[in-house]
């Protein structure tokens, strides 16, 4: 594969949370300002010649459609080329992949990848729970978002003896990490006992097994490796990426103890980057529910299939563990503003590889970080991006 090397020269986000006081446009402007402000040698906003915006569902704030024209105007960049990407929960990570390809192709010079999502303009009942129709509209009524992942917990427990305590260990770790991340929605510790005592949401998942509904925005600035040094002395490079699909509905899955889209997407990204899971220093993975992180670390090859629960319980994925996972607090603590999620994960990888993550900094030895999302009804699509600080 021959492609021009792409560098990340800036990244930033706004504090995630229930941002009742901010409009979609204001959140976007905040994330863009943070990304611009992060560029070591400075950058003129007008240097941006293309924008890829990720927003998953505008209907959550009353917009049936959100074209590419919404964000440039809000950033003072009306006239710049802009395209909206919607690809379920990996929308943000796929926007990054598409932005990287735009630079790699040489068509665009400086690309802003920005994810923006309004989750809380509507009430909880009207939000993602609304219609309880996450599945097939005729057959699968009553399916809310947790229904898309909880069946995997039931089956994982059945086949591998995974326990509620193992699931809870994921929530405990990510909430701990969230305490160290000033951008996280939740910044408080939780205990295993608290997770196990939280109300049942979708058995076997409880409230603290679930990510919150969060507003947020995040942005990164991409340019070619050749131009990167104009903006920074510490560029981070795009090492590889992969996207893969699977059948969309839960009844079409070939397995209920893993997500094949993640396996395929990551194998493509590893091949492109020329690295394997053992060469990663950290990973930001899709932990919309505790079980999802356990599936992810197995499907991404960090641990053997079936060992995700014990590995989580034993601290292998903690900040000082063998493979730190979700140092930002993950979706569970930082939040999951869908379009922004992937871009925020990439910003975390960028900080970590530049060793600028403060109290939650992990040890960077080999210089590789992985970012992953999976989603779309029954996890029908996954995107994996791998970044490196190695030139």
């Amino acid at each position, binding site marked *: 594969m021959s492609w021009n090397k792409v560098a990340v020269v800036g990244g930033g986000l706004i504090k995630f949370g229930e941002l009742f006081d901010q409009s979609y446009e204001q959140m976007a402007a905040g994330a863009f300002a943070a990304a611009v402000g992060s560029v070591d040698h400075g950058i003129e906003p007008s240097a941006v010649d293309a924008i890829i915006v990720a927003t998953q569902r505008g209907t959550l704030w009353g917009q049936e459609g959100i074209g590419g024209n919404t964000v440039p105007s809000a950033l003072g960049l009306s006239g710049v080329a802009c395209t909206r990407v919607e690809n379920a929960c990996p929308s943000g990570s796929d926007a990054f992949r598409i932005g990287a390809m735009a630079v790699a192709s040489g068509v665009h010079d400086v690309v802003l990848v920005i994810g923006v999502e309004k989750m809380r303009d509507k009430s909880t*009942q*009207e939000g993602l*729970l*609304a*219609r*309880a*129709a996450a*599945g*097939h*509209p*005729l*057959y*699968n*009524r*009553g*399916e*809310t978002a*947790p*229904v898309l992942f*909880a*069946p*995997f*917990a*039931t*089956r994982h427990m*059945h086949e591998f003896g995974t326990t509620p305590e193992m699931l809870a260990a994921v929530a405990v770790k990510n909430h701990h990490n969230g305490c160290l991340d000033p951008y996280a929605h939740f910044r408080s510790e939780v205990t295993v006992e608290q997770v196990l005592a939280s*109300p*049942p*949401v*979708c*058995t*076997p*998942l409880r409230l603290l097994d679930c990510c919150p509904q969060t507003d947020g925005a995040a942005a990164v600035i991409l340019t070619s490796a050749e131009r990167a040094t104009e903006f920074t002395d510490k560029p981070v490079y795009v090492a590889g990426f992969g996207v893969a699909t699977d*059948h969309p*509905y*839960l*009844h*079409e*899955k*070939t*397995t*209920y*103890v*893993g997500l*094949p889209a993640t*396996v395929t997407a990551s194998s493509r990204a590893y091949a492109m980057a020329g690295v394997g899971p053992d060469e990663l220093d950290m990973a930001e993975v899709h932990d919309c529910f505790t079980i999802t992180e356990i599936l992810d670390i*197995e*499907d991404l090859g960090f641990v053997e*299939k079936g060992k995700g629960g014990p590995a989580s319980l034993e601290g292998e994925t903690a900040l000082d563990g063998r493979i730190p996972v979700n140092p930002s607090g993950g979706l569970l603590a930082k939040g999951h503003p869908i379009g922004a999620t992937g871009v925020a994960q990439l910003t975390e990888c960028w900080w970590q590889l530049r060793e600028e993550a403060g109290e939650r900094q992990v040890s960077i030895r080999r210089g590789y970080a992985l970012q992953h999302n999976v989603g779309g009804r029954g996890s029908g699509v996954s995107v994996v991006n791998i970044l490196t600080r190695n030139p």
Partner: protein
Amino acid sequence: MRPVAVLGVGAAAPSLRMAASEVGAAWGTGAPKGTVALCDADEDTLTLAWQAATDALRSAGIEPAAVSGLWWGTARPPFAEGPSLGFLATALGLGADAGGALYAGSTHAGMEAVSGAWDALAAGHAEVTLVVASDALVPGLGTAGETTTGAAAVALVLGAIPDPTAGRGASGAPRTPVSTDGTDSASPNGAAPPARLVARATRSAPVVDRYRGDGDTATGDVYDARLFREEVFVPLLVEAGRALQGQGTSPDAWAVTDPDGRLGAAVAKRLGGPLAGGDVYPQVGDTGAAAALLALVSAGADDDVGPRTVGAVGYGGGRATAVAAELTRALPGAAALAEVLGRGRRVGYVEALRVRSQLVPMADPIPMGVPPTGAAFVRGNAEMLGLEGARCRACGVISTPPSIHPHCVGCGGSELDVVRLARRGTVQTFVVNQTMPPPFQAPLPLIVVDLDDGARLMVQGSPADAATLGIGDRVTLALRRYALERGVPVYGYKAVRAAPSGDGPGGDGSFGDARLEEKGTAAPAKEGAT
């Protein structure tokens, strides 16, 4: 009157029971006797009818495609105006060319359905008819009906008996599927049918008893109970019964509609015979359109009694119809009645109000993404109600539903045959959803089912199974009401745990399985591989 054969029967009762004393306690009116059956939030007169009819077809050994039509009587169909009959016929697997009729408007509808089906057979316009009588009426708050109104369904498969005096066809072959052995008895396998309907009589009087006006969702009893017992109910029912005797039949027992647990016995006494089916009312209450036929099925459950004649007398809306049935042996399917009536979860008055939508939260239900009148339903309702799959000629994998699978989920092939799915399967995995917006009610299991033909579905489960469901459990697909969507009932299948014997209501849907088996090898199960 030309006799017709009874080939098989089925019965269904809803999953909830309430002691009448709960009603008395709620209103401070003492503790009336009795128990009534009532529908859970996902049941109604149509789902009960489906269950009874499914079981009746299986008991009779009749393929749905062989049924000439569906004659359904229910005082209040689920769509007051709309596609009630078509939905039920499709879900039962009847052909798109099936005839029949829907009778409604009073609890007499069940007897009208029998009469209509019988007349079609006698006229030679049908060979096999499916008769269903069901009701799940909602009594008005504070009316006497609250302590008596039950719910149930009963179904009879009727077959034509060739007229021995008429010439046979050119081939000399009997009309299918009912053959004759040279006597006046007939059944699909050439043996005498278990029962024949031999006489019928109707009496009418223009009186207002029960009443429900436009816009009313519950039934009011506006009549004086003593007045109507003496001047309407007893005289009409007895006259109809005596008219049977006038046609040369002499019933040995009387299966009588019973709105209060006393009227049936009083009518039977005046007709000079014992009451049949006296076990029905005490267990499920007044079952409206189903009452008299349920009592007939009860009378036909016992194989030891020997040949006898039972008079079934139904009533509703000022009309009484009596039917004389000559039983030669136990009615196929009737033995299941005791179990059908006997099960059920006990609920209190408040839960009864909630499941009957008489106690509703102030919060607005959130409309579904797909309105029941939308294109997705027009396109997909038949394949969903008919439980169709697309089976790949190349690899045998079944993709569901066909309309969203132009290509096989197993191999991507595009040569697919539409098949009816198996109705039984095993739980692959499941969840119990505890947090949903109205109109959904927790706990709601959602189950990935590996069907016995290798197909896989994800469907709702029964709240009754929520606490004890497990991977590997055997389940049966049963038609249930998913929601009232913008006031319109939406139907779909739920995976309900099969009875321990593995032969519980809902059955094995043998007609569905059989068709797949005819086509050859079973589809390979999807492999779990990661």
